[in-house]
């Protein structure tokens, strides 16, 4: 993989921040976008902009072809059986909320259980809290091991025949834990439950095959995988989606409308009320093309090399706490002892190094880690070992800086 050539396709990386060349280590929050994605959105607006699925004019057909073409790209990328199973949403949050409202609120009742893990992002906790409030179902959490992983024994222990929904992240945005989704899906299915997977941190970094995982729903965002913000995907098994009611009603999603009742379009459009996110979907399609030319396995391999190197280097720094398991996806969450992560991130920023500091939308996990906040460096296909060396040396400087002033 030619990282130098890849970097040259990301115009934003070629700039100085505070007098130093930018080192972007916050891709878990949002990835940068290659020129091909920016260009695809641009040319859609400059040449083909029109509403989709209506009208007979040429622009309308072009826009519809591009929009539906993007859906086919997503289908192939995640190995779904059919494009009927690929619903465009605003992002992961909207995708999970769609399942919570449409499936959860209608199928759960008191006595039923929703099983989660404490490592979930807020977007995979709060929708289920709401479902529990509306339906009287209870929330149960699979306990975490001290390294931030779950064991299949605990999964089997927690999921019972009362469990109707298992909601789990594929990759933790804080710990980097990679969860055994296929095995958990099997356990869920043996107990008559469905599994909803938050794939936001997995799909940008590894090959995902929803049929091989045998998950019932898989949600992800475009903007973390080189695509634009405001577009995401809900994958769902057709048999389940067909039984579900739309959550948004209005234009685009209807078949026939009468004064007192209406019927819905077939899948996937019944879940896409209103003018869809056309440019966003086209941008996501371009992002998938881009990732495919590099190859997801190559991306995973590159990130594994980076995270292994970074872990080795970080361990040479005294007074650093690293959270999460040894075997992890391409991100490292950490704290310098006696330095608040905000202060760490400010010093790194002064050196041109962008990292995240805060609770990472995972407050229950912060409580489990017994910290109020942490710093996080996350890697992607455009990061290099040089980036990591800059990161490590600015961490050293942060340590010196705060060591001096105290």
């Amino acid at each position, binding site marked *: 993989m030619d990282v130098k050539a890849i970097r040259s396709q990301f115009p934003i990386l070629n700039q100085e921040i*505070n*007098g*130093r060349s930018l080192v972007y280590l916050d891709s878990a929050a949002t990835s940068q976008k290659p020129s091909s994605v920016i260009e695809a959105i641009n040319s859609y607006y400059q040449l083909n902009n029109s509403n989709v699925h209506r009208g007979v004019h040429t622009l309308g057909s072009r826009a519809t072809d591009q929009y539906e073409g993007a859906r086919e790209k997503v289908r192939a990328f995640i190995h779904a059986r059919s494009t009927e199973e690929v619903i465009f949403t605003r992002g992961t949050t909207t995708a999970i909320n769609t399942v919570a409202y449409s499936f959860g609120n209608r199928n759960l009742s008191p006595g039923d259980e929703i099983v989660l893990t404490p490592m979930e992002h807020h977007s995979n906790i709060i929708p289920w809290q709401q479902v529990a409030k509306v339906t009287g179902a209870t929330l149960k959490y699979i306990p975490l091991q001290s390294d931030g992983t779950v064991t299949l024994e605990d999964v089997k222990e927690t999921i019972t025949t009362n469990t109707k929904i298992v909601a789990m992240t594929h990759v933790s945005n804080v710990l980097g834990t990679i969860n055994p989704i296929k095995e958990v899906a099997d356990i869920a299915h043996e107990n008559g439950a469905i599994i909803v997977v938050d794939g936001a941190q997995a799909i940008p970094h590894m090959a995902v095959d929803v049929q091989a995982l045998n998950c019932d729903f898989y949600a992800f965002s475009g903007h973390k995988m080189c695509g634009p913000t405001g577009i995401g995907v809900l994958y769902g098994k057709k048999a389940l989606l067909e039984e579900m009611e739309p959550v948004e009603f209005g234009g685009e999603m209807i078949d026939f409308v009468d004064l007192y009742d209406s019927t819905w379009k077939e899948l996937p459009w019944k879940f896409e009320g209103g003018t869809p996110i056309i440019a966003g979907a086209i941008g996501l399609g371009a992002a998938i093309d881009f990732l495919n030319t590099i190859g997801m396995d190559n991306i995973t391999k590159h990130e594994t090399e980076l995270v292994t190197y970074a872990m080795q280097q970080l361990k040479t720094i005294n007074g650093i706490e690293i959270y999460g398991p040894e075997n992890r996806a391409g991100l490292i969450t950490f704290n310098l002892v006696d330095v*608040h*992560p*905000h*202060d760490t991130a*400010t*010093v790194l*920023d*002064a*050196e041109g190094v962008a990292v995240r*500091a*805060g*609770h990472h939308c995972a*407050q229950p996990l*912060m409580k489990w880690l017994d910290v*109020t*906040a942490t710093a996080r460096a996350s890697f992607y296909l455009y990061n290099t070992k040089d980036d990591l060396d800059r990161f490590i040396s600015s961490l050293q400087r942060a340590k010196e*800086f*705060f060591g001096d*002033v*105290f």
Partner: protein
Amino acid sequence: MSFDNLDTLYRQVIMDHYKNPRNRGSFDQESLTIDMNNPTCGDRIQIHLLVEDDIVKDAKFEGEGCSISLSSASMMTQAIKGKTTQEALNMSKAFSEMMLGNDVDTEDMDLGDIEALQGVAKFPARIKCATLSWKAMEKGIDK
């Protein structure tokens, strides 16, 4: 920018307040208590005020946070002690202006150590850290 600016942000006096916070704790008697969150990082701060006849008799704070939010809380509790509630609110207004990088006429008020926080204005991402305890104080007085 780099380290010169960082030195402005993290001046000695700020670090002193962070390491040796003044007025940390709570009161035995009943007091005005306000909880405030910094939603960007999850830091939580609690301000306790003893207000009698529109005068801030005493002020304390509890909570966790970064050097900027804790030192600001420490300085704020120091500065408003003995002031009328109106004076405290005026100081808060002046502090907000300072954080926006605007010139503030501080002749009539004794901001003391607080002026050390002026450098925060150059770090937009950190302004909320500095204003957190002030917003909590304002909320308490408005009650």
